[in-house]
């Protein structure tokens, strides 16, 4: 378990409506500091600028899908350490297992319950190694 509590979350999601709901849920319920990125191609820059504790990643996005962005994060020396959580509506068990083996911190299935989202993320955070 990391020594400090989870506080800064970067959320990559193309759907504006879901962005808004998730941001509200994370800010109001979870009291997190949230930065939302709508275009996955700008995600790497946003990570560098914002400096999140954890990255929440949508699975299906136009331009670049979640798994591709995830691999990019894991390939980059500066971002490799960041825990990444997937939000997904349809990923199969095999794909999720593969991502986990590559180092994904966890998954949250869509549709998510806004009230429970902060707790789910805190549980994943708590399960991380130092």
């Amino acid at each position, binding site marked *: 378990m990391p020594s400090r509590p989870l506080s800064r979350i970067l959320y990559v999601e193309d759907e504006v409506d879901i962005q808004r709901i998730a941001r509200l849920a994370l800010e109001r319920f979870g009291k997190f500091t949230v930065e939302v990125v709508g275009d996955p191609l700008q995600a790497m820059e946003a990570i560098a600028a914002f400096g999140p504790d954890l990255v929440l990643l949508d699975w299906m996005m136009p331009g670049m899908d979640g798994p591709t962005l995830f691999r990019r994060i894991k390939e980059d020396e500066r971002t490799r350490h960041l825990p990444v959580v997937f939000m997904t*509506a*349809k990923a199969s068990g095999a794909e999720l297992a593969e991502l986990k083996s590559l180092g994904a911190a966890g998954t949250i299935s869509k549709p998510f319950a806004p009230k429970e989202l902060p707790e789910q993320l805190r549980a994943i955070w708590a399960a991380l190694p130092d």
Partner: protein
Amino acid sequence: MSESAASSTTFVAAPGPAHAGTVDARSVLADRVVQLYSQLPLGIAGTVVVSLVAAFELRAGRYAELVALWGALVLFVSAARLSLYLAWRRGDRGATDPEQWLRWLGIAALASGVTWGFAAAVFFPSHADEQQVFLALLLTGAMAGGISMYAASWPMYAAYAAGIAVPFTYVLATFGNRLFTEIALLVPAFYAVSVGIAWRLNEVFDSGYRLRHAYRRLTEDNAELNRRLQQQLTELAEARRQVEASGRKLALFAERSPIAVLELDPQGRIREINRAAELLFGYAPVELAGEHAKKLILPKYHEEFDAQWRRLLETREPIARLKIRNLRRDGIGIVCEWTVTPLVNRAGDTVAVIAQGRDVTQELEAERLKKEFTSTLSHELRTPLTSIIGSLQLINSGVMGEPEKDVLELTTVAERNAQRLLDLINDILDIEKIESGKLTLAPEALALDDVLREALVLNRAFAERYRVRFELRGELPQAPVHADRKRLLQVLTNLLSNAAKFSPEGGTVEVTLERTDGRVRVEVHDRGPGVPENFRARMFSRFAQAESALTRQKGGTGLGLAICKRLIEMMNGTIGFADRDGGGTTFYFELPVLQAPAGASPQETTCHPDRSAEFSTSKTR
């Protein structure tokens, strides 16, 4: 003589030992009997006529009474012979017992001979010279005439002739006349010659009979052969008719069937095609005859075809459900599913290959569309629902500020119905996955008791909505199972939410977990209205919902239990329901207990006495 006449073998020329007792020898004997008896009336007639003439000639003189006596004797013997003849005719003509008939005829022949011998012995000495000449002629005539009568059995003739010759020779020899003495020497010689002739004739008859029998048997064999040949010809004709009929039937099948059928030679060239194949590819049979089958296949798949063809010729085993990208005459590519069967002759050579196929292009397209639709359902419907449910949850939770009471009521309805829509989509996706065989479970070693506790916590809020509480009854035994945790929770959620929905307000849903030899059983007892009689059989079918205002009011997709049943069955369990005493229904499922690995000692968990209270939920509204 009488002794030999009584012997059954006397009158029969002894056949070779090889024939003794055979059917053949007996039938020859029967033939001999027929021959002898059929001449009998002629012999009797001859005897009577000649005797009457003789009696007439000899009547004058001192011995008229003796002549009358002789005549009576002849008539008596003739009558006896006649009755024998008639008896023989009435019966089966000596077929069953030829020896007996032969014996009787031998006695009759001897008697007949003896009457002539009597005439010689009595009348020859007593009559005048001219009458003696007449008598001598008569006697020699009788002896000679007997040859033809009895030639079929020389011993019979010998007995008959001896009856004449012996007294005659004696009378001649003792007459005291030198001429008569000389004649007396000639009579035995004549007898001997006559018997010799009879023996020869007997032999001739014999071989004649044998030839006849051999011929008859040959004829019979021949007839039998002919009969069998005829039968075989008939059978052959019938077989041919059947082959032709089935050939016609097959041709009809091939002709009328919607399946395209191609006959190919072992090199892959087309020999014949049926009507369906014509329609499928757009070629007439003559256009394709002699062409290679590859003409009907997209060029980029030719190599694959060659490989499959080699495999077919090597294994000589049919290949089923082979999907090939075919090419129609108009250049349009289609996908066909083929069953390819090599026809192998007795020598093991492939003489032809039959390919049967149908166009599955549209089926594949439909399958693709279905997949696309499923994917759309999954993503395009769930994404907006995520927004709707999320927004409503945020509003209803009060975190955005306390909404007005009326507004909250409406947004609560909206959230509940959005959730219901999401449940329906999830259920449809599950059913689709189950039915297409694409649902895979991730079974692991689980403690069913823990999963049950978790399910109760997860569904507590739902139960509260219906003002129902869950109550865990009794002590929870340790219940290790091998199951998919997520899917097990899904089943439990389904049973618990159903029970909550159908329970009366303020009611309690009791939950038990029992472990009995090798199985664990979870029961969910409600006090609802029970299952209508006409609905019981369809309880676990798809879209099964009892038709009532109640179910419509309670909602639900009608897919939940069908999914539960499949899921539990995939985990090697059973699911069911039963009426509950005092009203309500019990739903249950059973799973096999996961056997502890060898060596590991089972560990009993301690159960809290107040566990049932732990999961009770109080009324919140």
